């Protein structure tokens, strides 16, 4: 096992290609832990950001500025009584949240955090991801059915109808992006090695195509890439049942829709599945259109100095966050009741600043000593950082949408899905193909 550990450290392949099970397992565990932390952070950010959008403060008591609120929520949900409706189908009731969770987490096996940092680079990566996200519908349907009461059943049927309709638009937008891997337009920046008529369905290949064509697919064949991206963005919000398409789970409409009868831990599994699915489809969008792990301007501003400057970004970001935490500490009220919160926030600021210093030290040490492992860890750090930063922007956008836009009525939702999104995505697909072949 130790030689499996050591032998991978020098390779530039994903663990799947290098046939290295230990590292694949390590990546899976890292992704699992990372996504769980991200979901908790999302929970906190959602409540704080929604509150600030609505000119109120959000959770302030539990930890300093509510930082421990997700943990408190998790503890509360875990110690709640686990109610199962008496007439419910026990097996299906038990397995429904698990299927949703499975579908949401399995997408992460193909999400690339870097040119070799993916669990496995499947050659049909995109196809796999589309298929797995269509399995999430099954979890919803089974949850509604197993609860054996009207509201969850109607909520589940509505939710699955919505998810299925927007999957079509999503798939067509994805096909648009895949087309762009092989069509190189005006050929301004040289012919990429993938554009001799063969595209690729693998996620890493798509980002590499963007790198070689010197353009994010968002800006390619302007405005076709943009329209395809907008269609995918809308469809992914509808896929994950988030506002403004959250009729099936809105509290004021159907008493929380398909997960009404779930309490405690099972409900938290549903929430976990929903947030994980949000992060998963956002990372797909980032990979397909926004250039994946590429830093801004990887080709225009190339060279070791620019690489070094951009490599300082992760450390500077964390130092900035630590500075904000210190600012909050200073502005805390000077009442003795707040002493422990002040100490907590200061400690949090110290932790953030410490991480920032560590992340600054790695590229500086790599530049100074030019050691092989340090160089590659700088690269890995940069790739992961830019990827996570882009996904974080998407997460903030999700919360922004929820705060700003009113809910769609269900028939309006279906009308938009079939009568607006489908023709537009078909049109964009055809236009992309025509423009790509002509130019």
């Amino acid at each position, binding site marked *: 096992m130790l030689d499996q550990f050591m032998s991978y450290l020098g390779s530039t392949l994903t663990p799947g290609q290098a046939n290295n099970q230990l590292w694949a397992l390590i990546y899976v565990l890292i992704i699992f832990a990372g996504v769980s932390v991200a979901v908790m952070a999302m929970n906190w950010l959602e409540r704080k950001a929604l509150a600030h959008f609505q000119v109120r403060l959000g959770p302030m008591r539990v930890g300093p500025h509510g930082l421990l609120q997700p943990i408190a929520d998790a503890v509360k949900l875990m110690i709640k009584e686990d109610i199962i409706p008496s007439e419910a189908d026990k097996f299906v009731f038990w397995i429904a949240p698990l299927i949703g969770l499975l579908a949401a987490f399995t997408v992460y096996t193909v999400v690339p955090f870097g040119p070799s940092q993916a669990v496995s680079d499947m050659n049909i990566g995109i196809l796999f991801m589309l298929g797995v996200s269509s399995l999430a519908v*099954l979890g919803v349907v089974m949850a509604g059915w197993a609860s054996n009461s009207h509201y969850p059943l109607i909520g589940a049927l509505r939710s699955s109808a919505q998810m299925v309709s927007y999957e079509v638009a999503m798939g067509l937008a994805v096909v648009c992006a895949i087309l762009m891997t092989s069509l190189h337009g005006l050929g301004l920046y040289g012919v990429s090695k993938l554009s001799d008529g063969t595209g690729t369905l693998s996620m890493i290949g798509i980002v590499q195509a963007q790198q070689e064509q010197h353009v994010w697919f968002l800006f390619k064949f302007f405005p076709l890439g943009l329209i395809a991206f907008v269609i995918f963005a809308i469809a992914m919000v509808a896929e994950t049942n988030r506002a403004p398409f959250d009729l099936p789970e809105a509290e004021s409409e159907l008493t929380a829709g398909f997960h009404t009868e779930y309490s405690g831990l099972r409900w938290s599994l549903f929430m976990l599945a929903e947030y994980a699915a949000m992060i998963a489809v956002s990372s797909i969008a980032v990979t397909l259109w926004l250039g994946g792990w590429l830093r801004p301007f990887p080709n225009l501003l190339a060279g070791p100095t620019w690489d070094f400057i951009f490599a300082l970004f992760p450390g500077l970001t964390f130092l900035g966050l630590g500075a904000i935490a210190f600012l909050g500490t200073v502005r805390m009220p000077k009442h003795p009741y707040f002493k422990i919160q002040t100490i907590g926030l200061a400690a949090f600021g110290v932790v953030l600043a410490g991480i920032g210093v560590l992340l600054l030290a790695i590229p500086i040490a790599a530049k100074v000593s030019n050691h092989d492992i340090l160089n590659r860890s700088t690269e890995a750090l940069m790739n992961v950082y830019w990827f996570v930063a882009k996904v974080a922007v998407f997460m903030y956008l999700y919360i922004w949408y929820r705060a700003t836009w009113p809910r769609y009525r269900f028939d309006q939702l279906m009308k938009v899905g079939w009568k607006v999104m489908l023709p537009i995505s078909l049109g964009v697909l055809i236009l992309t193909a025509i423009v790509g072949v002509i130019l």
Partner: protein
Amino acid sequence: MLSGLAIAGGLLVITRRNAVHSALALIVTLLAVAGLYLMLYAPFVAGVQIIVYAGGIMVLFLFVIMLVSLERTVKERQFNRIWPIGLLASCALLALFFSVFEKGKKLFEDRLVPAPTESVNTQKIGEMLYGNYMFAFEIASLLLLVAILGAVIMAKKRI
């Protein structure tokens, strides 16, 4: 192991009283078969199977089961009155299959063509679909159109 899962799923499909359990067993079977396709170096067919079959058709089945399930169907007798004859006929079919395998064993020896490079599978299928099988492709899309129209008209309350 995957084949064991597939066969177990198939058994569960035909024996469960509750239609929803049968549908779940069918989903397990479909996913196991998709895994078998991957072992046969057919990644595109596996992907298509998961998206279309497990993701689409089974959702449709679950919808319909929920719409038409009555309480009394669960309490009714599951199997036909003439099930011994059906079982006998299927056993005869199985015996026929096995005799075919025995006789033709020499034809399909354990000769497996060495695994093709994976990255070109989808591309080659695409080439074949649009090259040799172009006509069948168009006819398939026409078939889907007819099926959509038929399903919509069938399920409408008043035409």
